[in-house]
Every structure is written in C-alpha cells, then in structure tokens.
C-alpha cells in the first residue's frame, strides 16, 4: 500500500510490560493464536506480558446484543482494570477487537461524563471491594505486533511470497469494525485506511489487496448472527466482501478481529454448502488467518502447533504455496499425539464443480 496517510493517525503504543486480556471467541475458535501471540512476545521479542487467569469476558457480545446493561459492562471492565492494577501493570493489551472497542468506548465515556466513572468505581467497590487505576496505555494485540513488525521481520525465516515464483502473496486484510470505526484515533491509520495489518503485510513481503468492499463489515453484527432469522443478512455481508475481493485472486485473508476471522472463514463454508460457490482462484475457499498465524508462518512455526487445523477453509494449499514444511498426518493429532478424528469433507475444501464465483474482467 502506497498510502502514507495512515501516519496522520499515529498511536502511542507502550513498549513493554503488558497486562493481557484474552478474547472469548478466540479462546474457543483459534486458541492457538493467543498462545502464538504470547510465544512471539516472550520468546521472540522478550517482552513482559502477564496472562491473568482471573479476568473474565468483557460482556461485549452481551452488551452489543442489548442483553447486558451498560452499567454492568462498566463494572466488569472496571474489574479488569482493577486486576491489572493489582497485578502491577498499567499497559493493557487486548486480544479482542470487540473488547478493545468497548474499553475505548468506556474510557471515552468516563472522560466525557465523569459521573459514570464515579458510579462504576462505586459499583465495583460495592460488589468486589476492588479499586483500580485506568490503564496508561490501551492497545490491541495487533497494535503490538504492528509495533514490533520490524523486529519480527529481522528474525523471519521466510517472507509472504510464493516459494516457487518469488512473487509476493496477495493478502486481503480485514480490520474489525470496532477497532477504529468508532474512535478513529484509537487505531493505527484511522478508520478509513487502518494500517495495522497492512503494515505487517508490507513489512513481511506480501502485497496488500485494495478492493472495493475493503471497509465493509464481515457481517457478524452480533444480533444479526445470533438471531437465526437474521443470519441471512449476516452471511450476505460476507458474500458481498468475498465477491468484491475474488477478482484480485487473494492467497489468503488476515483479520485482527475474532468475529471477522471466524465469519469470513465459516461463511465461506456455509455459502459453498448452500449454493455451491467458492471464491478462491483454485476453486476452493480463501484461507483466513489471524495476524499471529501470519507472523508465526513468517517466523517458521509449525502450523498445527499454531492451531491452524481449526480453520474451516483448509490452509494446506497456502502452506504449499509458501513452501512451509509440515507434517500432513499431524493435522488431527491432539494432546500426546492422540488422533482426534477428521471432519467430514466440505464443498469449500474439495471443490470439483464449475461454480467458482464468476470473476469479472
């Protein structure tokens, strides 16, 4: 990406000593990604990051589906801050975009309406007896990876390139809506052209695809997915993005939001099953990676160790293209090498028909 306007939205990111807040979705659907993140932070970059088993969900999903009232949410978030304060940290690294957005929103609300902060402090104290300091620095974990992208590149074993032709891989980056669309200043590059993922891709040798529906939501939309009757709308949004990016023949997508990574991946499966349409140039689905997985591949980590078998769209074709050596038989081995069983074949991974999404011009 040739744009440099992202520099107008420089964001301060703390260098070290983070309190780590995990993501509900990621722990369930991409547990390997968070592990990989910690591994990179600690082993590759030598940072201090505290992974606290006591912290809870931020209630973001409940909040955005109008189930959890704002006061409750504030109290829960206040508790996370209290845990951070108690653990002696003042920089918060948040794994989830929804949480990141919510924390940012709450801090802004407290700033604009101090009485709400007072009430949250009071509620927290009444309920738990805890007190807290507001974080000095609030960053999404993709911000941290972005911040350290050059250090990671220095230790990379491969680039985001086609191992045979040496051509850079076409990468579609997708930023979670709540990363910077609510508060542009909270994201690297603002809300129009967030640079957080594109910066990594640029640094690690890939080519960022700039396609028409780049800023469009993945379709998760909380209520739109959670109510079955609305799911058609959710999936239609993903399809809109997929149709828009397909002509660029992306090698993979990378997302920094738990929901986005999950839905861009899983809706491809659903669309293929329902309508027999796939969007990858090879007739299969387009793999969707988290930025940690992308970084892990660059650093030469084993894909199965990073949990990439959890993807709905198989990543093997991508691994082959990148020249990643991996053990095909190791894909479905669980703890202690125990075979956990392979899923049934899906249209999105075994496409043989002729209904690849018609690519115009």
């Amino acid at each position: 990406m040739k744009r440099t306007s992202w520099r107008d939205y420089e964001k301060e990111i703390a260098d070290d000593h983070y309190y780590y807040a995990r993501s509900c979705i990621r722990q369930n659907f991409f547990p390997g990604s968070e592990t990989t993140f910690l591994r990179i932070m600690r082993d590759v970059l030598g940072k201090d990051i505290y992974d606290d088993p006591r912290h809870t969900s931020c209630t973001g999903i409940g909040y955005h589906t109008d189930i959890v009232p704002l006061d409750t949410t504030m109290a829960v978030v206040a508790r996370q801050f209290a845990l951070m304060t108690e653990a002696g940290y003042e920089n918060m690294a948040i794994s989830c975009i929804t949480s990141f957005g919510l924390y940012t929103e709450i801090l802004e609300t407290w700033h604009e309406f101090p009485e709400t902060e007072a009430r949250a402090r009071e509620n927290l104290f009444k309920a738990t007896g805890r007190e807290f300091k507001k974080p000095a620095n609030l960053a999404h974990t993709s911000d941290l990876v972005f911040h350290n992208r050059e250090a990671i590149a220095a230790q990379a074993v491969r680039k985001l390139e086609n191992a045979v032709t040496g051509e850079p891989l076409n990468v579609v980056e997708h930023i979670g809506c709540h990363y910077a669309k609510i508060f542009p200043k909270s994201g690297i590059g603002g809300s129009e052209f967030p640079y957080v993922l594109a910066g990594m891709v640029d640094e690690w040798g890939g080519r960022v695809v700039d396609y028409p529906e780049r800023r469009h939501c993945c379709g998760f939309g909380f209520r739109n997915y959670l109510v079955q009757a609305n799911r058609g709308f959710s999936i239609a949004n993903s399809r809109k993005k997929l149709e828009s990016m397909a002509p660029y023949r992306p090698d993979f997508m990378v997302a920094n939001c738990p929901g986005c990574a999950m839905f861009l991946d899983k809706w491809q499966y659903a669309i293929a099953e329902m309508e027999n349409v796939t969007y990858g140039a090879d007739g299969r689905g387009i793999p969707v990676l988290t930025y940690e997985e992308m970084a892990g591949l660059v650093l030469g980590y084993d894909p199965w160790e990073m949990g990439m078998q959890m993807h709905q769209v198989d990543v093997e074709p991508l691994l082959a293209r990148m020249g990643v050596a991996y053990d095909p038989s190791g894909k479905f081995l669980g703890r202690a090498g125990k075979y956990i069983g392979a899923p049934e074949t899906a249209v999105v991974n075994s496409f043989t028909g002729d209904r690849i999404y018609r690519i115009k011009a």
Partner: protein
Amino acid sequence: MNAVNFGYMISVARGIDLDRNDLTSARELGDEMPEFRACIACGGCTATCTAGNLTSFNFRMVQTLVRRGEYAGAYREMNKCMLCGKCRLVCPRGINTRGVVMLIKRKLGDY
C-alpha cells in the same frame, strides 16, 4: 441446489449493483423508444394513476428500476396497469407512457 439447509437463506442485496445488473435490455428499450429515457421523475404519472389509486402500482418507480437493470417483477407490476392513458396526459415530458408499459411488458415479459 441447497445441499444443506442451515435454517436461513442468504439475503438478497437491497442495493442496486450497476456493475452486475445486465443493462442490455434497458439499453434496448431506450433504443427502441428514446423518449423512455426522458423521464425527470416528477411522479405525476404515479399520482394520477388509475391503477395506483387502487393498488400499490408505481409506474415511475417500476420504469426507473427497469432503466437501472432491475427487471425482476417489472412485468408483473406493469400488468397492473389499465392502460387508461391518464399518465400520458399529465407527463410534462410528453412521454408515450402507455407505449412504455407495452414495451416493458413485451421485452421483459414471458410472452
């Protein structure tokens, strides 16, 4: 075609996608009857419409949609028209609106 029933269908986009809409028919309609393109969307036709008085038929909207390549349902809608010709009398652009109805029905209908 639905191999798997997930209990929902992919919603059809509400937006008009001029990249994807096949405008051939719209173009042909205009070529056959250039005044078809002269509409300034004043809505006089719809307001005076005898059929529109009794049902939801909206001539201006349907023919505009046709010009945008949104053909679905145009034939069915146009069939609500009684061809009475009031619209032709009020049209400030003098468009042969009845001719437009017949033309759309012919081009986009199944007869």
